[in-house]
Every structure is written in C-alpha cells, then in structure tokens.
C-alpha cells in the first residue's frame, strides 16, 4: 500500500523533460533505442550504466549537442517544458541557454576567474558596458557554487591554475550566469578525488532547489547518494527507470540487478 501511495505522490511531480520513442543513430550504429521516460522538475535524475551504453548520448540529446557529431540522426520527440526540441525550427541558442551542460573534464578557459564566469554574458551581449553589474552577477554566481569566500580576492587570477574541484565549480558558475533551468552533468566528478566529489555533490543538493539536474555517472554510489530518480541504461536501451531507492533496493529487471550488485560493469 505504502508503495502505491508513494507512486501517486510521484505522479504529481512536475515533469519538465519528456521523451517519446527517441532513437538515435550514429551512421549505422543504433546508439539509443526507443527511449521513453520523464524527468521531474527540480529533482536530481541520475543515468547509470556501463561505458558506451548511451547515457552521455542521451544527455546530449537534451541540449542538441549531438548535432555537432557528423552522421548523428535522432527520431522521436523530446519535449522540454512542452516544446518538442527535436523539431526543425527549434531555436538552438535559446534551448542551450535554458539547458546548460557541465562536462566531464573541468574546462575553464585560460582566462581569469572573472572572465570565465561572465563569458556567457559576453556571448549574449549583456551588460558589457556595465562593469558593476557584471561584478554583481559574478558574485552571485560564485556564491551559488559556494566559491565566493575562497576566491573573492582572486577574481583576476587564472582559472586554469585552480584545483580541479574549483575549476569544475567555476564551470558551473559560468553556466549559471546565462540562467539555465536544467543542468546536464556529464560525469562531472570523474576527474576529481573523493573529497572534491563530496563537495560537488553537496553543491548539487544546493542547486537542486532552483534547477533540474540530470547527471550521468558510472559511479553507482554517487547516483545512490545524490539522485531522486535513477535510470539504468544498457546497450542503448533504458532498461529501468524509477525512484532511486527502489532501483537500488528492489530493481524489477534482472539486468539492473546484475549491474547494481556488481555482476556486470
């Protein structure tokens, strides 16, 4: 009974991303097979699975970064806030402003911390003449990623000289200035040590209040720790999707069980 109750609560969540029959091909390679699921707003959704299962590819469907790959072809529908973003007339610039991405390796530009953070505003030609406003936004953004106290006196230092954890947070801060609604995180901690990883996870819990987060990870413990819902992917298929706790304690699919118990992967 309790389980049913939980599920009915779940159904009331606002779903912000909704996929319908999504297939993706790289040339002849069928990388995503008939993906159907929904991602809840202001929750953390984790995608797990062995390398090459298509979880990063799926992530890159949501901001259409797969468009950059030659020979990639997507069919089906992905609705974000009701709009099918796979439609030909989608405004990619707006989509990517709304759906931001954090990459596997921290990738700040070899510029100052300040210049890195306001990079997105330079692109979008916002406040370029108003130094005070830029400063204010940089401050907000650094505060949001819990770096302000550490770095407030070093804003003109080279961002590439920071620790990897700080670099990754700078990358998140750089993303926040363009006011995204969804944050896609592609194994954001795979280059970090456990302590830094814990701090990033802490930050994710903080960010969840304002943003919807989709994280791809091959660290199962991480998915279990941070996420509200988890999807298990294998060979391009979404094998199972649901409440994180349930996926890790009572998976319904044999293949999920094999993976989370360590028989595969």
């Amino acid at each position, binding site marked *: 009974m309790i389980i049913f109750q939980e599920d009915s609560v779940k159904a009331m969540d606002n779903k912000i991303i909704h996929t319908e029959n999504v297939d993706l091909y790289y040339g002849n390679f069928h990388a995503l097979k008939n993906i159907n699921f929904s991602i809840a707003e202001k929750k953390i959704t984790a995608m797990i699975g062995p390398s090459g299962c298509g979880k990063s590819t799926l992530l890159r469907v949501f901001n259409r970064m797969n468009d950059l790959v030659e020979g990639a072809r997507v069919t089906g529908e992905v609705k974000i806030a009701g709009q099918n973003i796979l439609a030909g007339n989608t405004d990619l*610039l707006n989509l990517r402003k709304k759906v931001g991405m954090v*990459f596997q390796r921290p990738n700040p530009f070899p510029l100052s911390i300040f210049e890195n953070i306001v*990079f997105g505003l330079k692109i979008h030609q916002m406040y370029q003449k108003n130094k005070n406003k830029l400063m204010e936004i940089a401050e907000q953004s650094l505060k949001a990623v819990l770096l302000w106290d550490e770095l407030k006196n070093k804003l003109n230092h080279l961002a590439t000289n920071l620790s990897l954890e700080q670099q990754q947070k700078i990358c998140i801060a750089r993303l926040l200035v*363009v006011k995204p609604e969804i944050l896609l995180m592609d194994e954001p901690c795979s280059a970090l040590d456990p302590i830094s990883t814990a701090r990033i996870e802490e930050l994710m819990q903080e960010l969840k209040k304002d943003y919807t987060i989709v994280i791809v990870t091959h660290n199962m413990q991480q998915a279990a720790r941070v996420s509200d819902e988890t999807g298990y992917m294998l060979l391009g298929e979404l094998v199972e999707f649901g409440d994180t706790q349930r996926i890790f304690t009572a998976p319904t699919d044999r293949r999920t069980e094999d993976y989370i118990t360590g028989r595969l992967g």
Partner: protein
Amino acid sequence: MISPRLTQKIAFSLLLLATLMVILPVAVVLFIIVKNGLPGISWEFLTQMPKSGMRAGGILPAIIGTFYLVLGAVVFALPLGVLAAIYLSEYSKDSWMSRLVRLAIINLAGVPSVVFGLFGLALFVGFFKFGASILAGSLTLGIMILPVIITSSREALDSVPKSFREVSLSLGSTKLQTIKYAVLPHALPGILTGTILGIGRAAGETAPILFTVAAFYLPRLPHSAFDQVMALPYHLYVLSTQVPNVDQKIRYGTALVLLTIVLLMNLIAIMIRSYFRGKKKW
C-alpha cells in the same frame, strides 16, 4: 671484431659530427657578415641617401622601401590568410573542394619565388596597370607569404581544444561567436608567430620584387603606393654585381642590416611563442 662499446662510440661521434656540420655554415655566414659588415655600420649609413653612384653614403631608401613592402604584404595577406584559415579549419567539411584548396595552398608554398615575381609582373604591373610600384610589389610578396600565414593559422586554430568550442556552443552561442570569443583569442599567438615568420621571408626575398617594384637607384623616399622603391635584398644584389668598385664594408654592411632584420623577426616570433606556451595550460 670491434666491440659493441667501440661501435657505439663511433656511431655517437658520427652523429655529433653531423649535428655540428649543421651549425657550421650558419656560424661561418654570421661570422663573415658581421666581421666585414660591422665596420660599415654607422648612424649615417642607416639614415642617409646613397651617394656617388651607391659607392658611399647610406642605405636609408632601401630600408624604408623594404619596410613599406613588408607592411603592404602583411596588410594584404594577414586578413585574407586568417579568414581563409578560419573557413578551412572551422567551417569546411572534408569535400573535394576543400581538399583542392588545401592542395592549392601546399603548392603555393612550393612555387619558386621568381615565378611569383613573373606572376606579379603579369598581373599587377601589367594587367591591373599598377606599374612597377609598392602596391604591385606588396601584393606579390603578400601572395607569396599567404601559404605561411594560412598554414600557421590553421595549426593555431586546430590546437585550440575542442572543449572550448563545446563549452561556448553549450552556453548558447552561435558558431561565429564561438570562433570570435572562444577560439580566435586562443589561436592568436600562433597566428602572430606565423605572420612574423612570413614577414621575415618577405623582407628577405629578391625575386618577387625584382620585376614588380625594386628600383636600381632611387635616392629619394617614395611619395605614394604607386612609386617605385629601393629594397634591401635587391640593393644588395645591385651593389654586389652591378656596380663596380663598391667598398666591401658597404656591401657587407647592407647584408648585415638585412640579416639583422630577418633574424630579429624570427627572434620576436620565438619569444611570442615561448611566452604564450608558458601561459597556456590545457
């Protein structure tokens, strides 16, 4: 039977010898030119007009001429080369057209400089009726250094990590904005280096300016882009072969000035490169 240890020693000595043989000509050339040229260098030599049929006085018009020619070549070749490199590196797909363009650039780099001279004579001096002028000479030199600039710009663009482009695009920028803000600034040092090497080459070449601009003897400074000028490499040729009884120190002095300009350009290029190499971390 020679022991392996001895074989090794002999091989090592041979390799060392070969390496020294490379340095030797450079050292000897520098030594001879500096030794014979230095006595000819004076403030007067650098700032005066040539006198008594180039057998005395200075080489100012040749220095100024070379300066104008190089400047003109860069003004023409730098934008064209960088824009072409951006197209080739960032936009063009691997089609037969882009392969053809790449092939053309490689071939352009291999064309003997005297052929560029003839080409300039036919096109700029003759067809466009610029006459023998700074304009015609600059354009000819510009075309000659174009492949250097394109090739080094492409290398510089290609060495900018793909992740910079991805980040920029993922923040909602257009491709052009990405190139402008996330790629070009980081490729600039490499582009600059290539340009300076191109300048060095343009300053030293004789054949391309031979038919298009260089004056045998013109003891005044140019007034417009349609004037002829003297230029250092051609002046050196004239002094060495066309005018009898030129004092050795004037000839070597001219060579020393030319060599210094070219080496200085290369030195600046090396300094820029090492400065930015220390700075970039990716």
